[in-house]
Every structure is written in structure tokens, then in C-alpha cells.
């Protein structure tokens, strides 16, 4: 019974949410480029946003970086370059706490702003509200895990790099090891479930703007010229409406 649950929760469920995430994102990009935006509400209110938004987003970048390091890099690698588990744990916990603090503070400011500024609340869709619930839950559960099993623990904290990280990597090379997740503390398990649901929801919310980080801006020339031909329409020509002057293929 436990093992059935284990397989469902730690194999089937993550794969299902990942599939929704991948296919959903492709579908949204293919069919809804026009809806693919940050949906900024800065026009309505800028004082609170000025404080909350950078706090939240920059904190989030730190948190994402921490997750990548913690989940992707095996413990043996960090030890091979001479970083002991205790050292790693110390840095990770403190960096993570700073990031988490910024994210939580930023999110609280942003949610407060959204609730109390009339026009911003009016511009909030049902999907936004749903997304906020899952985003808030993921962040809260993550913070809870860190506080309970890392900061308040006496014995140097829970070493997730023995269990969660190998499980996470096992999903990627299609040799899932759900048994690794059996003994993981409850807050971590809940955090992973909430985050998986958030990823399943991701393509259908404004969160897609995260994929539009404008890094190419750093490398392109300032002025952009486009020909009318290239810019002609977002729409493909329908069959039978091919332009003249081209050889029929």
C-alpha cells in the first residue's frame, strides 16, 4: 500500500505535472503569444510595486539558484572539491533564508497591494488568484521545511541531498527511485507536491513571463529593422492564399 502511494506520488504525479507543464507551455506559446505578457499593473500603482516587486523577484532568483545547486549537483561532487556537508549546509541555509525572507516579504507586499488598490484588484483574474494560492503554498511550505528541519534542528539539519536530490535526478534519467522519498519529512513532501501542482498550473497563468527573460537584449543592436514581408502578420497565410511571384512547390 505504502509503496503504491509512493509510486503514485513520487513517480506518476511528478511525470504527469511535468508533462502538463511542457505540453501546456508549448501549446500556449503556439496559440497565445498575444496573451504572453507580464500583465504589469505598474500603470495603476507604483509605490508599493517599487518595493515589493524587486524584493520578490530578486529573492526568487536567489531561491531558484539555491534549488538548482541543491537538487542538480550531487553531494559527492561538492565533497570532491573540498566542501564538507556542514559547510555546504551552513551556506545553503543562510543564503536560502535571506532569499526566502525577501520572497515572503515581497509576496506579502504584492498581495497586500493587489487587495487594497482598487484598479489592481479589478485587473486580477480568477487564474491569478488560483495561481497566488499555489505560489503562496509552495513558498510557505518551503519556508516551513527550512525552518523546521534546518534551522531548528540540533543535529546540523536534515540532509536532503541524500534523499530528495537523488530522487529528483532519478526522474530526469528515467530511472525513478520513489523509495528515496519514503522517509522524507512531511513539510518537504508537501512542498514538493505543492510545487508540482504549481508547475502544472504554470503554462496557463501569467507565470509564463518567466520564460521571456530578455537576455538576448544584451547582445542585439539597439535599433531593430524589420521588413514588411517578415512582419507581415502573426497569421500564417491560409491555403490557397500564397503570395504570387514564388514558384509553386
Amino acid at each position, binding site marked *: 500500500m505504502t509503496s503504491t502511494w509512493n509510486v503514485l506520488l513520487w513517480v506518476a504525479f511528478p511525470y504527469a505535472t511535468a508533462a502538463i507543464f511542457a505540453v501546456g507551455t508549448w501549446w500556449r506559446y503556439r496559440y*497565445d*503569444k*498575444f496573451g504572453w505578457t*507580464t500583465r504589469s499593473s505598474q500603470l495603476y500603482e507604483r509605490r508599493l510595486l*517599487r518595493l515589493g516587486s524587486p524584493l520578490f523577484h530578486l529573492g526568487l532568483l536567489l531561491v531558484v539558484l539555491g534549488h538548482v545547486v541543491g537538487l542538480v549537483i550531487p553531494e559527492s561532487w561538492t565533497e570532491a572539491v573540498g566542501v564538507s556537508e556542514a559547510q555546504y549546509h551552513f551556506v545553503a541555509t543562510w543564503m536560502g533564508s535571506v532569499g526566502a525572507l525577501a520572497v515572503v516579504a515581497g509576496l506579502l507586499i504584492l498581495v497586500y497591494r493587489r487587495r487594497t488598490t*482598487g484598479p489592481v484588484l479589478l*485587473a486580477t483574474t480568477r487564474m491569478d488568484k488560483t495561481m497566488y494560492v499555489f505560489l503562496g503554498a509552495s513558498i510557505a511550505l518551503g519556508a516551513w521545511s527550512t525552518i523546521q528541519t534546518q534551522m531548528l534542528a540540533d543535529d546540523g539539519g536534515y540532509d536532503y541531498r541524500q534523499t530528495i536530490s537523488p530522487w529528483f535526478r532519478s526522474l530526469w534519467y528515467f530511472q525513478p527511485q520513489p523509495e528515496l522519498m519514503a522517509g522524507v519529512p512531511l513539510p518537504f513532501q508537501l512542498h514538493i507536491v505543492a510545487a508540482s501542482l504549481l508547475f502544472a498550473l504554470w503554462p496557463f497563468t501569467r507565470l509564463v513571463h518567466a520564460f521571456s527573460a530578455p537576455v538576448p537584449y544584451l547582445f542585439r543592436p*539597439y*535599433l531593430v529593422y524589420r521588413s514588411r514581408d517578415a512582419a507581415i502578420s502573426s497569421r500564417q497565410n491560409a491555403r490557397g492564399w500564397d503570395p504570387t511571384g514564388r514558384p509553386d512547390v
Partner: protein
Amino acid sequence: MKVMAQMSMVMNLDKCIGCHTCSVTCKQAWTNRAGTEYVWFNNVETRPGLGYPRTYQDQERWQGGWELSKRGRLKLRAGGRWSKLARIFSNPKMPSIDDYYEPWTYEYDMLLSAPQGEHTPVARPKSLISGEDMKIEWSANWDDDLGGSTATMQDDPVLKHMSEHVAEELEQTFMFYLPRICEHCLNPACVASCPSGAMYKRVEDGIVLVDQDQCRGWRMCVTGCPYKKVYFNHKTGKAEKCTLCYPRIEVGLPTVCSETCVGRLRYLGLVLYDADRVTEAAAVQDEHDLLEAQRSVFLDPNDPEVIAGARAEGIPDDWIDAAQASPIWALIQRYRVALPLHPEYRTLPMVWYIPPLSPVVDVVGSSGNDGEDPRTLFAAISQLRIPLEYLAGLFTAGDTAPVERVLRRLAAMRSYMRDINLGNEPDERTAAAVGMTGGEVQEMYRLLAIAKYQDRYVIPTAHQEIARELEEMSCSLDFEGGPGMGGAGPFGSSSGTPVPVAVENFHALKSRQTADRPSSPGRVNLLNWDGKGDPDGLFPPREGPSSAPGPERGTGSGDTSSDGPR
């Protein structure tokens, strides 16, 4: 030399009567939608005044356009690539809705549906942003005709750059209107500011556009444009701007603002320019040299070398012909009476203005002197420092000499043509005093005063050997109620493929016109009724059990007393 063609505009400010017809028709055509209520692609400002959005010309505050770095190189005033990305989560220099104005409607429905009472019902203003009651305190032309200017005029950024005593006198001396659209700059700061690369300048005609599919709503273009002519659609989360009515331009029609201009003050035509020299011209050290630098980028369309260069770049011959006949080329280079708006922003704007002579003539006339006598006028132009300084603040980065030259030419034309009208021998010395011949003055007079439609608008049609005009007919999703027909995409009104503008406006107008009572459906706007049939709500509902529409309606509808089945 890389020859490129630019569709550009010149406005003759002497003729603007401030009627706002251009603004209204533009709004009807382009920004008559939710999310763009506050947006005016074309607006008309009274000068001196604050402008729209308020004090947009104060680049110390708004950080629009380009500036020179210490090493003399062009850089965006609001910061380069890295600093843009660092501030992407909250753009510190973007105007908020209050800097434009809070758009509103009136509660018209109340006039019709209020119950009988002691007091006359009123239609209170309701904010289109929050939906709440609001106090109207500003709009896109709140200080129209200097209304309320005693309270606000001292904040005009152009005035602030002039001396103090000037501001005191100004109110009594002059006022003029400044219609503004997107400048479709040769060196557009909005395009350079766009992190997504969604904004671009069209190779063929230089029109600056926003790709609605690529825009991600980072809002940097709003800051980048020193004229504040890129707007954020708060409903779709995308940037929008004046398109120079490209669907009309492509088929040889003037823009909506030009076509509907009552004073016929707008000119449209091509200018050929050397794209390789744009950056160099925008980066000249002295702001006062920017006007000449920009002029030097323009290429003479009659020069055989330029024609050969244009052909080499694939510019079609009818476009070269149009460039030769272009009123813009004539006004900017041949007669040299047009000036750019705020060249000091270093964007090389391509909507130019003929500064108004009328403030000067008015003063001369009201002082009892002859407003058409060349000597009086010439003297007045150089003596009336206030209009001159103000116009220089707008058009020449503060250098009064070019403005004075333009006004003297306009004054000379006035005097010269007066003699002809009176049947006198025209005085060639008047023309020669401004470096023109009598023949040139008469040609300029034809273009400025007679201003025939075909002289004002020389617009070659786009060469598109493709079925583009048919675009709006050919989408299989455009069935009634389908996603292409004004319906919502999967994520509400801001999603789905963009709807062709004509279709979108048609549906927006249609639904608005047929739904004049949003809170109580079932009334018919008689102005839109085509006289055929009797739509629901044309007649009040019948009393009694027969109120369900019967098949006989229309034949015996006058008989309201019969209430049983026949």
C-alpha cells in the same frame, strides 16, 4: 551610403485651430477599446502648457531619449542594457495613470432608469480604471486654450528653460496649438529600449511599430520615448503606439488625422535618407547643430547618385518619383520652413513643424500697425523675444536663429503675396531679403496656402505582391462568435491571436452602439436602427400572457388589446 525611405509628416501650425478633430477621429479609429481609454495616439496641446502626459518634456524627470556619454557616444538617458535589465521588475521612470489622466465615463444610464423623484437625476462621472465615482481633475487637454493656465502654466518644461520675466508676460502675448503624433524617429529610443525586441522600424517606409505577439509588457519603451508616445495597454499588458495608419498608408491613403484635419495643415510624403549616417548625426556634440545634422542625413531625391543608390537598395521607381514630389522634402530642404520637435532628444524625429507666425502678426496687428508690411514684421519677429524663445525651446533646442529665419520667410511670403492680391507689382526685394526668388515664394505659397489634397499627400502605395489586403477575409477562425471576431481567447480578453484592428473596432463599436443601456438590456438605439424589422426592445413588452413574441408580430402589431390566441 545606404538609402532608405521614410514616410514623414509636416504640420503647418499657423493653420491649427485647435479643434481636436484629428484626436477624436484617431481615437475612434485606433484607441476606442478597453485598456486604451487614456491613450491618445494623436493629441493636441495648447502651448504654453503642460502637455500630455503632464510635463513629458522634462527629461530630467522622465529620462526619455538619448544623451551623450562623457566620451561623446550616444547612450539611452534612462540607462543602457544592463541597467534596463536590473530595473525590469519595476520601471522607476514610467509615468503612472495620474500623469496622463484617469479616464472616465458618465453614468448615463441613471438619466433613463432613475425612479421618479424630487430631483433631476444626474449622470455622475465614473472612473474607467476603478469603476468608482471620481472627481475629474485632469485630462489630455485640460489646459486647452490656456484654461486654468494661471495655476499650471509655470510647470511647462519649455517655459522653465526660459527666463523668469518671460513667463509673466506670456499669457497676454501668445498661444498656439501643437498637434502631436508618434515621431517615427530615425533613431528611435523606444525601439532601442525594448528588451524583447518587439518594437521595430519598418525597412520600407520607416514606420515604427510594436509586434503585439512579441511584446512582453516590460514597459521600457514608455520610458525610452521622450515624446511619451508609446502607451501601455493596461488590459492586454502590451505596448501600443501610433502606427501612422500604416494600413491606409500602404494603399496610398493619408492617415486618419491628416484626412480629417479641418485646417488641412498636415503634409505627408517620403524623405530619402542615409541610414549609415543616422548615429553620427544623432551624436553631434552641440545640441544646436542637431537640426543641421539631421538635415544633412536627408538625401536629395533628384541627385542621380542618390537615385542609383535607392535603386540598389531595392526602392521601387514610383517611390523615387514620390520622394521627388514629396511636400516634406520641399518644406524641410527646399524652402527650409519646417523644424523638428525637440531635436535635443537626439532621436531624429520625422514629424516636423512649420512654426506659427500668427502670434507675431497678432501683436503687430493689435498695436495698430500693418501686419503684412515686411519691415514691420521683420522688426517684430526679432523684437518679440518671447514667442521666438519659446518656439526655439520646442523646435531648435533653444537656438533662436533658425526659428527667426523661418518666421522671416513666412512673413516675406505674406507681404509678397499681399502685393499680388492687391494687383500691385510684387517687391522682389522682399523675397530676396529671405534668400528666395519671387517664383520660389509663389511655389511655397501654393504648397502652404492653396495646399491641394494631391500636393499635401504624396503617398506611394506599398509594393506587396502578396494577398495582404485579403488578410482580414481569410481566417477560418473568423466565424460569428469565433475567437477572431471580438470574442475572448482562452485566457480572457487579453489572450488569443490579435484581432485585425478593423474587425476589433467594428465589433467594439457595434456592441457599444447596440447596448446603450448596459444595466438594463432590451432597448434599441434608434440612431443605429436600419429601419428593417422590429428588433427586441423597439416596442415596450406587451402586457399579459401574450407578451411572448407571437408569429403575427409586424402584421397586426398595432392591435395591442388582443391578448388571446387568434
